[in-house]
C-alpha cells in the first residue's frame, strides 16, 4: 500500500500524525508528509486507513492499493 499527502490540500490539522506517527511527519507549520515515500509497512494498513478517514481536508489518498 502506498499513500500520498496532497500538500495543497493539507492545512496542518495533524490528525494523521497523531494517529499514525509511524507513517507521517509534520513540519513546524503543521504541514504533513508521508514517511518512507508513502510506502506503508506491512501491518500498518489499518492505521493508514484511519488517518485517511480522519483528515478533515481529504488530503490523504491511496496511490497504490
Amino acid at each position: 500500500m502506498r499513500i500520498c499527502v496532497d500538500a495543497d490540500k493539507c492545512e496542518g490539522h495533524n490528525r494523521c500524525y497523531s494517529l499514525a506517527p509511524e507513517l507521517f511527519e509534520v513540519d513546524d507549520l503543521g504541514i504533513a508528509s508521508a514517511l518512507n515515500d508513502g510506502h506503508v509497512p506491512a501491518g500498518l494498513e489499518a492505521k493508514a486507513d484511519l488517518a485517511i478517514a480522519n483528515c478533515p481536508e481529504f488530503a490523504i489518498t491511496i496511490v497504490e492499493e
Partner: protein
Amino acid sequence: MSDRDPSDMSPREGCPVHDWATDFDVMDEGYIKDPAPVWEELRDKCPIAHTTRWGGAWLPTKYDDVREMARAAPTLSNRSPGVIPPAPEMRELLIAEVKEFGSELPPISADPPEHKPYKQLILPLFSPKAVEEYRAFTENLANELIDKHIASGKMDAAVDYAQQIPPRVIAYIIGIDPGRADDFTDWTRGIIELGQTDPEARMKYRRLIRDFFQEMIEERRDNPRDDAISKLMAAEINGEKLSDYSVIGVCFLLLVAGIDTTWSSIGSALWHFGTHEDDRKRLYAEPEILPTAVEELLRYYSPVVMARRVLDPIKFGEADMVPGEKVIMNFPAANRDPDVFDRPDEVVLDRERNRHIAFGVGIHRCAGSNLARMEMDVALRVWFNRIGEFEVTDPDAVRWTGGQVRGVRTAPMRIKA
C-alpha cells in the same frame, strides 16, 4: 439586488422565533441550550437558512455546505468574523483603522494574500512539538486546581477547573503574567460573551486589551525577552517589521481565541461525564480510549462558530447571498450531519472514523488546535486520575453561553478522591 447595511439591526431582536428557516436567532435561549433539534429540522427543510435578524445572516447546517463556504475566501471574507456584527460606531472605527494599519486581528480577520504570512508567524508556537513543551506546565496547573478543592468534596468543573486552565497556559505562551488570569478571563468574556450584544462592553474591553499589549510592547522594546510578544516584534513580513498595531492584534487574538474556546470544550466534556454515568464508567475502565473520546467530545460539543461577510454576490444551493450579509460558519451543525456521521446525535467515545471540523477547515484552520487538544487531554487525564467518583449535583443548574462560543459556564459537582 441592493446591498444590506450590516449595522441596520432589525427591530425584531428579542422576539420569539416562529420559523427557523426564515427567521433564525443564534442568541435565542432555547437554541443556545440545545441547538441540535433546530439543525435537524433545517437540514430537511431548508439546509441554508436565512434571517434578517442581527443585520442579516445565513445559517448552513450540512457538512458539505459548511466546508464549501469555508473555502470560498475571499468572496466570503473573514474581515468581520464576529457572529454578531459590531455596532455602528465600532464599525466606523474599525473601517478607519483597517484602512490605516491593515487587518485588526490577523490572521483571523485577514483574507488572502494578507492572511498567510501572519498564520505562518504563529503556527510554530503551536506545532505538535512546541505544544509538548507546555504539557508539564498544564499538568501542574490541573493538579494544583484539584488539590485546592478535593478535600471539600465539591467543585464546579466549569468555574473551578475548566475556566482556570486555558488563560494560564496561553498567558505562559504569550509571555504575560499567568497570575493575572482572572483579568484575562474577564476581558475575553467582555469581548466574546458580553460584547456580542453590548456595544459599550465590546468597546471598553477592546481598549483594555489593546492598551495592555501596548504596555507589554513598551516593556520589551529595548529589552526583548524569550516570548511570543518579542518574537512578533522582531518578525518581518515582506521585509518589513510588524507595526505595533499588528503585533497587538495578533496577541489580542491569541489571548481571546485561546481562552473561551478551550474552557468551553473542557467544561462541556466534564459536564458530559458528570451527567452520563455510562460514559463516565467507561472512561474509568478504558482510559486508553481518551484520544478518540477527546475527538468525539470536540465533535459533539463543538464550541466555536465563526462568521464570514459576503463581499460579492454568490450562490450556494438555493441561497442567493447579497454583499454585506453574514454567513455563519456552522461547524457545530456540520458535525451532526447524518450524511457524514453514523448516529450523529450520540456520543460514541470510541468513534474511530471522525472527520469532524470543530477546528474549522481550509486556510483559517484553528492555529491552536494542537494546543487545545493537549489541554483537553491533560485536563481530562488529571481529572480522571485524581478524582475517583464524581457527578453533577443539579443538572438543571447548568448554564450555557452561546453565539460565537458555546459552552458550559457552571457545572457544580460532587467529587471524591
